[in-house]
């Protein structure tokens, strides 16, 4: 069992936590994440064997 020094862990500040549920910011992130996912999905759907 690994021992973890919790002092070395990143802890989010209040602003970071608040932004996670901030509506305007999350609507923007919703668009960004969707575009990001679509790009990755498109890349993963190139499945035809060409060689």
């Amino acid at each position: 069992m690994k021992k973890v020094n919790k002092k070395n862990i990143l802890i989010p500040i209040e602003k970071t936590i608040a932004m996670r549920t901030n509506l305007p910011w999350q609507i923007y992130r919703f668009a960004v994440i969707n575009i990001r996912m679509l790009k990755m999905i498109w890349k993963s759907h190139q499945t035809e064997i060409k060689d």
Partner: protein
Amino acid sequence: MKALVLGAGVSGHTAAMYLKRFLGKDHSVTVMTPNKKWNWIPSNIWVGVGKMTPDQVTFDLKTVYDKHNIEYVTAKATEIYPEGLNGSKPFVKGTSTAPEAMGTDVTVEYDYLINATGPKLNFSATPGLGPEHGQTVSVCTFDHAHHANEDLKRMIAEMKAGAKKTFVIGTGHGTCTCQGAGFEYVFNLAFELKEAGVRDKAKIIYITNESELGDFGVGELHILHQGFITSSKLFAESLFAEKNIDWITEVHVKKIENKTIYYEGMDGIEQTLPFDFSMLIPPFSGVGLKAFDKSGEDITSELFTPNGFMKVDGKYDPIPYEEWCSTDWPKTYQTKYYNIFSIGIAFAPPHAISKPLKNPNGFMIAPAPPRTGMPSAIMGRVVAQSIADMIKSNSKTPTQRASMAYLGAACVASAGMSPLSGLAASITMYPIVPNFKKYPGYGRDFKYTTGEVGLAGHWIKQILHYMFMYKAKGLPFWWIIPE
């Protein structure tokens, strides 16, 4: 021609629907599965905390297959005869699970076969594990998740009356996969307990076979974050610490007795962890299919690995971790028989992705590679396309590939279900199997490997639920929705 699909989970059902779409009325498609319902498994997490009912995550397969002219055989496949028997066509033997013919033998001939039987939930690998014969709950099926929620509600009622409880969530064996399900459940549990006003009376511990939090069986991820290359470990630990959830990593759970988990880490020293409520994911194995040649000789070991997964076009020679390569991974999922394919959890991965470890007492602490969700569905479509092309061009060579070394994955891990205060980690990775030659140092493309936590992720997770239920039901233009 007749195509037979064994299993109707994410992979098998996708394959069957696309096969019928690609082949049309000229060829028949049959699905053999012991299940009556299709289950969108990712949403079982929400059934397990009472946010959804089993009916919201399932539907009757028969209705969909009738509508799409797919033959439906309610039976559990047990034996494959890839060369036929004494001159017959290739066929699969099974045992009926239909109420009117329960236990009777069923035989289905085929020209092309897709094995998508998924996993056997191997609770018996750890004494005391599982909801049926053990002391832990599970969210692997909608029934299990429903039962987990009933137990959870009982716990919450006792906590409201003043009791303090210990919750242990995670993996129930050193070789488990699907750590993401444990990750999602532990955060949804914390969220529900907070909503119920009893979070202060709960100690929550996450126990896992991963070397570090955020490994997820894929050898952890690295993403670019504000000018730094940051590991998924940092993000995962941060979230656990923020939500006041303790964690124990790199362990093998040996047994569960008297509401106590007995486990060992890499030091080989046995430790104990008492609990009041525990949801532990079981290890997976193959479903135990057997194979026989045309004279009836058992050839199971030629088609399957010892743990029951089907060998396809991967490299199965045992090689040390240092020599693992992304090219070891199967591309077309074709077996030694040109007309048999295996996809989803049913195919045998050549090896793990995370570094396997063995402790001084010989227990493997080695997360198995994940092959559920998006990759499973893509494999289903790709193999369906290959088979359709092979039938139409009278060829024995697949036309499509879906190696996990070339596939990415989108994973939206719920951390609480609420339209305005919910959270989820939205993760994308490319490729799933790291390619250290193409992407030196970290094995993945930073352009497509990303992650963040927020309410937007929860919205995406919820939308994906309805989108994939729609697609699986074969409703108008279902095929436009990507896997």
